[in-house]
């Protein structure tokens, strides 16, 4: 271990609790309170450089660092998984700078930072869900100028978004947007739910937990308070629908969950498994078995040979 690494690992004095300095935390905390007071509105904030690159969750990390306390238990997921690079490194970051308890169990966590999924298990009133957001402005790809999109939000002028969804129907026969599907929050602001699959949109509606969104590069924070109406935009003759999967999870046999496709070989072999690893593990621990969940038996046979 180099001297510098030792300093960071052993000398907590080098950093404030939860990494950020107190004035930065106050600035972010004020933005969070205004975000909660104006559901779906993007509050500008003075995003800081973080010890990780943009695109790795600097917005979510700053929000988490500003709310987290000694009594919190943190869970971090990346595309539903607790064990991918982004999730592991952010979890390790907060263990180091805030010395907080961490977990992979959804129900044990008080703060859950997420990249692009909402856990399958319903969230409770004692939890806060923090989203990492790359592009917070839902109108950005339709109108590149910030001055114009700000005016459109001010005037509640969202016709352009409906035209975009209509063009989807004209071109593809259905609304082809499958992730970052725009929502209307509390009947006022059109909001980008971050690139979660649209499968998760219904979970945002009247959610018991507070939902906070942080976009580090774009310097925006927004929020959905608990018990707030969140409606996915649609048309009467083309109502909003979530993805459906034909087969259950290959490991835990769960249906009505979001599945990832895993390529198995170069002959077209593939399997579908839960994207939420905690949900899948808990189901397997409870005895649920999918059609490809025979690994233990297979491994035992292999070891015996």
């Amino acid at each position, binding site marked *: 271990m180099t001297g510098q690494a030792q300093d960071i690992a052993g000398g907590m004095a080098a950093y404030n*609790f939860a990494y950020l300095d107190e004035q930065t935390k106050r600035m972010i905390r*004020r933005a969070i*309170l205004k975000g*909660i*007071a104006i*559901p779906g*509105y993007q509050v500008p904030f003075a995003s800081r450089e973080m010890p990780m690159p943009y695109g790795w969750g600097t917005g979510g990390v700053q929000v988490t660092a500003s709310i987290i306390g000694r009594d919190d238990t943190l869970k971090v997921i990346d595309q539903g998984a607790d064990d991918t690079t982004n999730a592991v490194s952010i979890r390790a970051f907060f263990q180091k700078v805030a010395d907080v308890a961490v977990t992979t169990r959804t129900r044990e966590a008080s703060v859950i930072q997420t990249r692009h999924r909402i856990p399958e298990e319903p969230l409770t009133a004692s939890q806060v869900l923090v989203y990492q957001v790359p592009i917070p402005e839902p109108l950005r790809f339709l109108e590149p100028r910030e001055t114009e999109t700000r005016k459109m939000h001010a005037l509640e002028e969202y016709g352009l978004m409906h035209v975009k969804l209509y063009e989807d129907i004209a071109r593809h026969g259905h609304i082809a947007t499958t992730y970052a599907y725009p929502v209307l929050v509390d009947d006022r602001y059109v909001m980008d739910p971050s690139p979660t699959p649209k499968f998760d949109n219904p979970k945002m509606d009247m959610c018991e937990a*507070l939902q906070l969104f942080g976009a580090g590069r774009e310097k925006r924070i927004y929020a959905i308070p*608990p*018990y707030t109406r969140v409606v996915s935009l649609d048309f009467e003759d083309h109502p909003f629908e979530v993805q459906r999967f034909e087969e259950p999870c290959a490991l835990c046999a769960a249906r009505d969950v979001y599945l990832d496709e895993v390529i198995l070989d170069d002959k077209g072999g593939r399997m579908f498994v839960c994207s939420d690893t905690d949900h899948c593990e808990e189901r397997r621990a409870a005895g649920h078995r999918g059609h490809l969940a025979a690994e233990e038996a297979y491994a035992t046979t292999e070891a015996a040979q």
Partner: protein
Amino acid sequence: MTHAAQSAASMSAVCVEGGFADPVIEAQVAFRALMDAMARPGSLCDLPGSLAPPAPLPEGLAAIALTLCDPDTPVWLASVYDTPEVRGWLAFHCACPLVVEPAQSAFAFAPAGAECPPLTAFNSGTQEYPDRSTTLLLAVEALTGGAPLHLEGPGIRSRETLAAVGLPEGFVAERAENRALFPRGGDLLLVAGLKVCALPRTTRVTAASAGMSTDEGAE
């Protein structure tokens, strides 16, 4: 020591002492209380209580000041709080600029009653930047035991009841006017002792007697 020097020394002691014992941790605890309060209007949340601000600044308002105010936030003080001791204490602990016009403030500190200007006197933000509105911290006598008000809106499952004592006259009508400005509007934190209750601009406030029968209050 001369009399003048003595009083200057005690003045500076009043200004310097009485902050959070553990500023980083207690500010976090206080913020989580404020965040929970703002996310669930009508719920009563507990602020940490290790402060000793100079009179007449109430302890609850002082805890919020230390949690949220700093050189970036212009603060307006109602005249009853505007004493040399309170000014000095806020200057030392928050370094927040004090403003004369309520409309210029990011945070305003007032006791409920005649001391508090009408809510329309504060900044309600702009249509483009509704977040630039004043957050009013209003000290009330108590947050329970008063005439019940019904609260509805984001953060509330169906309906909450707030029974604060000492709310200003015409409060319900003022909140309705404020609600009509949405997305502009002021956000309100009601503070009694170390209890805080938030009424963000989204909350619809109605007098309980005007609507349904009283059995709703038991919920």
